[in-house]
């Protein structure tokens, strides 16, 4: 536990240093800061706009906007929640102002394979992969039926594993409300999965 705590402190201190350097205009530091967070930003945006092109545009706009505004961020501890808020706002703006045709997802759902790869392997692993695909697809379809706020909370908490306090800061609500809404979002997802089934 002690080593984990020390590692977290070191990591936090590294992040603080990267934020400090990036705020002074060091683009390389900002790149180092944003690289491990880019997928999170993208998934957050995707959970709002629901398609890859708009999610990519919103993520780009948010990350560049965060770069522009970073010198005016006084509390480095607030960086994670602040970045989440910028992404959420950019995605919401994108959804309001753009009308795009719904995309058809053609990419494989599994890394290193996908449904067709699983079908080509008549072994136990292929069966397990098929189950995973079916499960992920069912969850995905149910997820798409949820309200935007519920999708955001599920992504931040279950996928990105962000702390409740940070989620509360990102969405501008109390920690207790986050707990309550998470409970509601999980129930909604369960109901949606039952409906999909």
């Amino acid at each position: 536990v002690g080593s984990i705590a020390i590692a977290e402190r070191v990591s936090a201190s590294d992040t603080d240093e990267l934020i400090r350097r990036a705020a002074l205009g060091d683009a390389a530091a900002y790149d180092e800061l944003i690289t491990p967070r880019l997928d999170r930003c993208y998934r957050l945006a995707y959970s709002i706009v629901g398609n890859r092109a708009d999610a990519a545009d919103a993520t780009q706009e948010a990350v560049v906007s965060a770069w522009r505004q970073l010198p005016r961020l006084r509390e480095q501890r607030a960086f994670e929640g602040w970045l989440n808020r910028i992404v959420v706002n950019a995605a919401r703006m994108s959804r309001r102002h753009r009308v795009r045709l719904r995309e058809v997802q053609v990419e494989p759902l599994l890394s290193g394979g996908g449904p067709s790869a699983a079908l080509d392997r008549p072994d136990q692993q292929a069966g397990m992969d098929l189950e995973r695909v079916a499960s992920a697809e069912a969850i995905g379809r149910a997820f798409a039926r949820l309200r935007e706020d519920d999708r955001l909370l599920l992504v931040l908490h279950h996928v990105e594993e962000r702390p409740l306090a940070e989620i509360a800061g990102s969405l501008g609500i109390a920690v207790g409300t986050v707990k309550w809404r998470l409970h509601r979002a999980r129930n909604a997802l369960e109901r949606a999965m039952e409906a999909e089934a």
Partner: protein
Amino acid sequence: MTGRPSAERQLAAGLREYLPVADPGLHQRIRAEIATTPQDRRRPSILGRLADADQTARRRTLLLVALLGAALTISVAAVAGALLREGPRPEPPVQPAPASLEPAPSSAAEDPSAPISGWPSTSKNEAGLYSWDGARCASSSPYCNVGFMHNGYGSGDVDIRIAAYQGKPIGGGEGVPVTIAGHDAIHRRINDRVQEWFVDVDTALVTIRLEAEPGTSSADLAEAEAIISSMRTEATGGPFGFRIVFRLPSDDWDSG
């Protein structure tokens, strides 16, 4: 006990499978745009915090500035008042006598003139007196269930819902006769987390439901029960002809 975490892990894994990751081209595009985008530099200013990029910090600073402004205004008014008292007292203008010169009410613990707010808002609410009168119910519906609140600024573990059925008396059924808000009521404990009170208020049946999450602290539960114990009714012109007044003992409660 391990069912829930396992289900949550499965849920998280499923969502991770479903949600896409950013393609490498996006990262390249961002790098290219950042290379040509200048940063907004904060100009030195005593009010620099008002331009903080973090909305929360900016709002906090604005609130602080507003409080300082209010304090300054009060101080100036106090100083001006003191100076006026010390100066030559001008002849008072002739005015009609005030209609009443009653003394201000004393600040007793249960001050009958204390302000009574409506239903708690979705944001933070100060401790004090609040009320529910069913005014937000749909007029065409005899059933009203808008009274939801929980201790969202505390643990978020307990919630209270108030609903009313117009013109329906208490039927039979199980329960313990009690008195709530000065009216006959039936108390039922549905399970170890849920309690309900059915209160016979004139022509309406009011139901109060208290629900607690597993592991709720006894302090949270006691606070929720204290809110229900504090209830009283007052005649009003609302849809039910009365309102339920209650006291929130802390600022943890909201309807979010």
